[in-house]
C-alpha cells in the first residue's frame, strides 16, 4: 500500500484536521464525537440538513457543508457508517429550532446508525434515504438500491430550499423528488485500498472492469472486458434510461462523477460521449456537473447520474452555494 499515512489509527483524525485548517473560513471540525459544521450558527427558522457516512468518499459529505447546502456532516471511519452519538451531537449543535433533516444513503449501517441518532435526538427531525443506484434491483423485501452520487444533487437542491426558508416537510418532499428523479450507474477499472486493510478490496485484471460497482468497491452487476468509452457510456446510460424513462425533450442534469483515481480529462471525455448519446435520444441536457464528488478512495472509474429536472429543481440547483467542494453564485 502506498498512501500518505503516518499511523493508520490517526488517518481520519489528521485528514479532518487538515480539512478544518484548509477551510477555516467556511467550516469547523468538531472532534469526539466527530462532525463538521458551518462556521456560522444556523439562522433562526432555517431547517438544518445533516448528512454523513463512512469516510473515503471525499469531498462527500464534509465538502458540502456551507451556505446553500449542508449544516453538518458526520464522518465515520473509512467506509464505515458514523455512530449515533455523532448525529445526535451534530443535531444539537446546528438545530435552530426549525428541525433537522437527515440525508442518508441507503446502506444498512448508515440507516441503522442514523435511525438510532434520530431516536436519541430530542428535537424535531425527519430523514430522507437516497437510493439512486440503478445497478441494484429494488425490492421492499431487501435492502434495495444503494444511495450513491445523486446524494450530492439532493444535498445541493434541498440545501437551497432550506436556505430560502423551506419547512422540514417541504425539504423532505423536494429531497424525495430529486432522489426519485435520478438514476446512477458506476463502473470501476481498479480497486481501492482501505487504509486499515492495507491491500486492495478486490482483484481485477488489467483488461477488466466492474460494471455497476458501488462506492466501496463492492462488486456490481458483472465483470467484463474493458471496452471503448463510447460503448461503456452507452451501456451505463441504457441502464439509467431503462429505469428513469425520461420523456422526449425532458430537461435533465447530467452528472459525471469520478471515483477518485480517474483524471478529469477522462471524465470530460465521458461527458462528451454521454452528451452525444443522450442527444441522439432526444434528451435535453440543461445542467451539468463534472468532477470528483462522490469518490471511492483511489479507485479508477466513474459514475453517471441523470436527474430529470422540473422548474423547482432547476431553480434550486442554480441558487448560490459556498462550500469547500462546490461554489457558485457567491
Amino acid at each position, binding site marked *: 500500500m502506498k498512501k500518505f499515512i503516518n499511523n493508520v489509527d490517526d488517518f481520519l483524525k489528521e485528514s479532518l484536521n487538515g480539512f478544518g485548517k484548509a477551510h477555516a473560513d467556511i467550516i469547523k471540525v468538531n472532534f469526539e464525537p466527530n462532525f463538521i459544521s458551518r462556521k456560522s450558527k444556523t439562522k433562526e427558522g432555517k431547517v438544518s440538513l445533516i448528512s454523513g457516512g463512512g469516510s473515503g468518499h471525499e469531498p462527500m459529505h464534509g465538502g458540502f457543508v456551507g451556505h446553500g447546502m449542508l449544516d453538518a456532516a458526520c464522518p465515520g*471511519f473509512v467506509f464505515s*457508517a458514523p455512530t449515533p452519538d455523532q448525529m445526535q451531537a451534530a443535531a444539537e449543535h446546528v438545530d435552530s429550532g426549525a428541525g433537522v433533516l437527515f440525508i442518508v444513503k441507503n446502506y444498512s449501517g448508515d440507516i441503522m446508525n442514523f435511525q438510532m441518532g434520530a431516536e436519541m435526538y430530542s428535537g424535531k427531525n425527519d430523514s430522507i434515504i437516497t437510493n439512486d443506484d440503478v445497478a441494484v434491483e429494488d425490492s421492499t423485501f*431487501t435492502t434495495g438500491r444503494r444511495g450513491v452520487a445523486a446524494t450530492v444533487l439532493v444535498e445541493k437542491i434541498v440545501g437551497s430550499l432550506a436556505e430560502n426558508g423551506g419547512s422540514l416537510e417541504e425539504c423532505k418532499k423536494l429531497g424525495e423528488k430529486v432522489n426519485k428523479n435520478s438514476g446512477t450507474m458506476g463502473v470501476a477499472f481498479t480497486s481501492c485500498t482501505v487504509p486499515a486493510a492495507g491491500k486492495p478490496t478486490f482483484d481485477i485484471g488489467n483488461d477488466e472492469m466492474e460494471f455497476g460497482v458501488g462506492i*466501496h468497491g463492492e462488486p456490481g452487476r458483472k465483470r467484463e472486458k474493458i471496452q471503448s468509452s463510447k460503448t461503456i457510456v452507452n451501456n451505463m446510460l441504457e441502464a439509467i434510461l431503462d429505469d428513469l424513462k425520461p420523456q422526449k425533450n425532458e430537461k435533465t442534469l447530467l452528472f459525471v462523477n469520478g471515483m477518485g483515481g480517474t483524471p478529469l480529462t477522462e471524465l470530460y471525455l465521458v461527458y462528451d460521449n454521454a452528451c452525444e448519446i443522450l442527444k441522439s435520444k432526444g434528451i435535453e441536457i440543461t445542467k451539468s456537473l463534472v468532477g470528483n464528488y462522490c469518490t471511492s478512495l483511489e479507485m479508477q472509474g466513474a459514475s453517471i447520474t441523470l436527474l430529470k429536472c422540473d422548474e423547482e429543481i432547476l431553480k434550486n440547483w442554480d441558487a448560490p452555494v459556498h462550500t469547500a467542494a462546490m461554489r457558485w453564485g457567491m
Partner: protein
Amino acid sequence: MSVNFLISQAKNIQIVIDENASEIEALDQNIGDGDHIFNVQRGLKLVVELEKDIKNLPLQKSLNMIAMKVLSGIGGSSGALFGTFFMSMAKTPDLDKNVNFSKACEMIITGINAMKERGKADVGEKTMMDVLIPVSEKLNELKSGNKDMKEGLSEIIKIAEERMLATKDMLATKGRASFLGERAKGHIDPGARSSQLIIDTICKSVINQ
C-alpha cells in the same frame, strides 16, 4: 452472569477473533467491502479496555457503559447491532439480583430480539442473524433448566456452526451483500462467521468451567 464474566469473555473472544481475522476479512472482501473485521476488532478492544472502569460497577450499569462504548466507537452495521444488543440486555428486569443461567439466557434472548428489530433481518437473509436467531431459540428452550446445561451449550455450538455454513448457499437480501444478487452465493457471510466464533467461544468457556 457477572461483570467479570463479561470481561473475561471479551478477552477470550478477542483472541479467537484475532486468530481468525484474515479469514473473516477475506469473506467480507468477497461479498462486502472488508470493514467488518476491523469493526469487530475495534469493538472488542474498546470493551476489554473498559475493564478498569466497569469491574466494580453493578451489572446493569456496566452493560450500559459497554453499550455506549460499542455504539460510539465502532460504526457501521456491527456498531449499531452490537450496541443495540448490550443496551437491550441492560434493560432485562431484576439484574440487581443474582443473575443465574436462566436469567443470562433471558438477557441474551432479549438482546438478540432487539438486534433483529434494529436490523430488520430474519433467518435466511445471509446475515449474522442466521446464526443468532436459532441460537436465541435454543436458549429459550434451555432457559427453563429442564435440560443439562452443558449438553445444551454443546448443541448451541453445533447449531451456530451449521447455520453459519448454511449462509454459503444463500442469496443475500439484507446488508451490503444484498447488492450482489446471485454473485453472493458460494460465500459464507462474514457477520455469520464472526457471530458463530463468538458463540462458540462463550459456550466452550462455560462448558469447561
